[in-house]
């Protein structure tokens, strides 16, 4: 787990140092993998740190991509970067809130047996379905423009 985390940090620092976005997904994935390993090793009934971890992970991702974007050649007028940072902070807080709600739901349904399993599966499928719909609508609008 420590090794995974170290590799993730090195990858992240390298990506930020060279200003390229390509290594960032790998770095984020490695951080997530380190958390998965932690979960598997500790095996808690329900880990409350997941809320903070999810919010921190997306904040790291957003700030890293912002950092790489700012290396571009386009100088933005004053205030644009501050607005973006504020928006990222709001995203992190939103992630905390959403994670908290989900954690509460999971905690309530923890002893629900098959019904809770069904709700969990439906939620996962629903999230994937939401992604598919979003991507398809984007592809359709891109084809329409072309």
């Amino acid at each position, binding site marked *: 787990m420590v090794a995974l985390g170290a590799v993730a940090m090195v990858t992240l620092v390298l990506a930020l140092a060279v200003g390229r976005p390509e290594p960032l997904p790998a770095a984020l994935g490695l951080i997530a993998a380190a958390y998965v390993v932690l979960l598997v090793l500790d095996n808690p009934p329900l880990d409350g740190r997941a809320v903070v971890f999810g919010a921190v992970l997306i904040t790291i991702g957003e700030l890293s991509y912002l950092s790489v974007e700012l290396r571009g050649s386009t100088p933005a007028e004053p205030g644009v970067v501050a607005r*973006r940072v504020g928006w990222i902070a709001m995203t992190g807080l939103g992630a905390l809130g959403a994670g908290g709600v989900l954690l509460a739901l999971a905690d309530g349904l923890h002893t629900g047996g098959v019904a809770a399993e069904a709700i969990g599966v439906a939620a996962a499928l629903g999230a994937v379905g939401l992604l598919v719909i979003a991507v398809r609508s984007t592809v359709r609008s891109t084809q329409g423009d072309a």
Partner: protein
Amino acid sequence: MTPFASPRLVPYVGLAALGLFAALALRRAELVIVATPFVLLVAAGLLGERRPAVHALLSVDHDRAVEGDEIKAVLDVRAESAVDLLEVHLVVPRGLELVDGDNPTGVHLGAGEERTLTLGLRCTRWGSITIGDIRLRARGRIGMLVWESRIPRPRRLRVYPRAELLQRLVAPLDTQPASGDLAARLRADGLEFADTRAFVAGDRVRSVNWRASARRGQLIVNERHPDRNADVVLFLDSFAEARDGQASDGTLERAVRAAATLAGRYLARRDRVGLVTFGGILRWLEPGAGIVQRYRLIDALLETGVEFSYAWKDVSVIPARTLPPRALVIAVTPLLDERSVLALLDLRARGYDLAVVEVSPEDLVAPGVGTDALAHRLWLLQRAALRARFEAAGVAVARWSDAAPLAAEIEGVRAFRRRARLSRR
């Protein structure tokens, strides 16, 4: 505007999907909690942000300028809906360079907000330049998609060549019947004193030189040179050019500058000036005078470019009216292409009064080392032999390089023509 995925979209979708499937596989609700922010952000970015409507207009404060002048390009951008970051890039074409302002630049626009961006541009090369290719890239607040568009707002900008320093011009051997600022060789009514002779019936009394008459004891009259103009044809060789990279001036840029300078000076002297651009594409302008002719000439010069061609051309392709009899032909050429060299010698053989301004490419070619240096020396010798060939035909050659101003080389031509005339007598 055309949407494109931002660099974050695919990684976030992948992370969310991996997290959700890992949650199912490992039966851990915590991974759903970790993946949920990514799912929500991607979904909000794809479904919640609409195509931005952005308009852009370009205006330029001048449509004509001279090399070295600075112009202002004003970009007005307006957004119908809010755009978190709008990157605006005006493509600066060759011949212009940015001296003031940020290009590209990023601005934030609220709904219905309009912004004016001012860019200072310097004209670095003469020519007819089209400016107005505007590239826009808009990004919403979430930024999962970026929207790009290219807005053509073409504006034509004519950049005239800057004038070279020139004090005196090459005088033609013959003049034309129309009046001008040039003292003709023949004797008639005019201002310039030519000689005296004995009075004959029909001479005007005002022509009598009373002092000479008193000395000689008979009536003596003054003869004068009339003020006439000349026909000058600028022969611009555009078959080939030499250039040392894109940044510095090649022989064509300097040739056009020299031709424009000569045209302006001869027209100011009330001569008629014509133009023949002899190259892959033949262009011509019959001799004329006045300010309108000056603009015609410069506009024709601005269209000049080197067009590659294998076609053999000689002077027979030039319309006869473009080369009037007794015209002074001034060739501005790098003497690089055999076709133009032979055409010039052909013109001389046909009796045209010819002078050559050689826009020397020799400074643009590095000597190299070893066999390259030997080849360079041979090439220089060949060029010297070519110049000697022209001079043997009675054609003065001004070798114009960066080392000396055009005026100095034109003085050399004037000196050569004085000697050549004496030797012919």
